[in-house]
């Protein structure tokens, strides 16, 4: 329809910036991942070691365990965020007094930096000084100790993530919901459709692209969570909350194990891409195929 030249021109700045700051660092990380490299060791040279880093990784129990807990973390956090976020976005569609005020309040967690969120949840949940264990002990007698209980630490990181990121889901879904045309909904009501039918046959298909984009963003951000969890639990107790982002951070910073850290990053990036690609193909491809036939 229009000249393709104009289309490429509109895309050019994006491709240029992502190329300069995205592709080169990625290629560098791939290159380093084939080396034994510890810049602060006695021998700081990069030693090419074929795929030894990758071989090590496949048998690294700590990495595999961290991959497992990451998947659990991502699953519980993202599923809860999407469900709660959608319900809250839908609740904001009604007109009620003080709606703008409550919407601002609800978005407040977003404006806190992850390191602040991690610190504040640490101060709230550390046994003996935190308010949450204190209240739980004195009201229901439950002993919450994120320093010793793996389950408690895991649960608190999930709850923290839900608290912090549900507003992102709510906001993007509000933007999708307010953009919906009103005629189909009025028509459906005239035709006597009930709420459930309207949700499954109208709302959901119409907001699906925005919903998928939001799920993707949350999914990949949860996969690479570092700052919050590092501040809150430091990956412990043991390795109960040592999510892959934290694992890589620990390999690279205290241990300066760059070669191995790079290999882990490449694999994690690869896994994230595969998961997202599978979701993308299964959720979006059927729609476009239907549309073109």
């Amino acid at each position, binding site marked *: 329809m229009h000249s393709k030249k*104009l*289309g*490429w021109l*509109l*895309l050019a700045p*994006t*491709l240029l*910036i992502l190329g300069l700051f995205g592709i*080169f*660092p*990625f290629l560098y*990380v791939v290159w*380093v991942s084939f080396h034994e490299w510890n810049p602060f060791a006695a021998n700081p040279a990069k030693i090419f070691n074929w795929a030894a880093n990758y071989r090590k990784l496949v048998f690294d129990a700590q990495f595999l365990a961290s991959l497992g807990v990451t998947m659990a973390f991502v699953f519980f956090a993202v599923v809860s965020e999407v469900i709660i976020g959608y319900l*809250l976005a839908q*609740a904001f569609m*009604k007109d*009620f*007094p003080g709606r*703008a005020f409550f919407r*601002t309040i*609800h*978005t*407040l*967690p*977003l*404006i*806190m*930096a992850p390191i*602040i*969120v991690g*610190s*504040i949840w640490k*101060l709230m949940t550390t046994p003996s*000084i935190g*308010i949450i264990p204190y209240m739980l002990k004195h009201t229901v007698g439950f002993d919450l100790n994120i320093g010793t209980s793996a389950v408690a630490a895991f649960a608190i990181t999930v709850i923290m993530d839900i*608290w912090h990121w549900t507003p992102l889901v709510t*906001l*993007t879904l509000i*933007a*999708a919901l*307010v*953009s919906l045309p009103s005629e189909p909904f009025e028509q459906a009501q005239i035709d006597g459709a009930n709420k459930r039918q309207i949700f499954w046959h109208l709302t959901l298909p119409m907001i699906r692209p925005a919903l998928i*984009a*939001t799920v993707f*963003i949350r999914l*990949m*951000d949860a996969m*690479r969570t*570092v*700052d919050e969890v590092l501040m809150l639990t430091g990956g412990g107790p043991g390795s109960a909350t040592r999510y892959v*982002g934290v694992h*890589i*951070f620990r390999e690279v910073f205290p241990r300066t194990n*760059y070669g191995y850290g790079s290999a*882990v990053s490449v694999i*994690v*990036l690869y896994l994230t*891409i595969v998961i*997202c*690609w599978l979701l993308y193909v299964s959720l979006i491809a059927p729609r476009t195929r239907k549309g073109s036939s």
Partner: protein
Amino acid sequence: MKLMRRHRSWLSVLFWIAISFVTLFPIYWLFVISVKPAVELFSTPELLLRNVYWQNYIDVLNNPTLRGYMLNSLIISSCNAVLVTTLGFLACYALTRFDLPGKESIFFWTITNRMAPPAVFLLPLFLLLTQVYRIGDFKLADSRIGMILVYCTFNLPFAIWTLRPTLDAIPRELDEAAYVDGASPWTVISDIVFPLARPGVAVTLILTWVFAWNEYLLAATLTNFNARTLTTGLSEYVTTTGTAWGIMAAISVFTLIPALIVFSLVQKHIVAGLTFGAVKG
């Protein structure tokens, strides 16, 4: 009937008050910590404040370095949010309106830039910004423009992915009609598509601003002084001799204020699109 509706809207208010308690509690606790002297921090926690101790705030306000950090954070995140939203909008216009070969692959590739685990990518970015991308003596590292560009790696894909559903939902017939009337592509983008996409643009602007404002690992590695941001300023209070939680909390409360202002300015625009019935006419 009318009475029942009013009754329901008050139920909504009650529901939101309950939700707000959960949302606000950690922020309230942040404030509580910021107005406590360090010694009280490690005693038995109390839900309500007895006495308020403002010294942490006075310390923060009297610190000129932190004021500089605040300015850097404001400039970097505002410029970055505007830049990525503009570029993302143009890119999405190209992706939704033009029949470009391989555009779905390009679309998916953009988001892979956001998936990278950050810790390992710090080093190559550091090398690029200090050694490769430099003009004479000017290096991108430790400069505001450098940080604005680096933040595009995670914010630009985000902008593209949140704006695309919005632009997809705007009927192409509207553009076509304008082109038939002899409008230039620029007029179509700015006068027809942009106003209709306002809720999506507002949300993108807010969220990219927030991501840039809150970013920590990259800022900590790539800046020393000139472009140091408030979040890295925070970490300077986590030292080997212990963390100055009170001051840290006071700075955190300060970081909330500009964010709150930006939020309330942009939130107005998240309202229903203007003319979705326009296609029929």
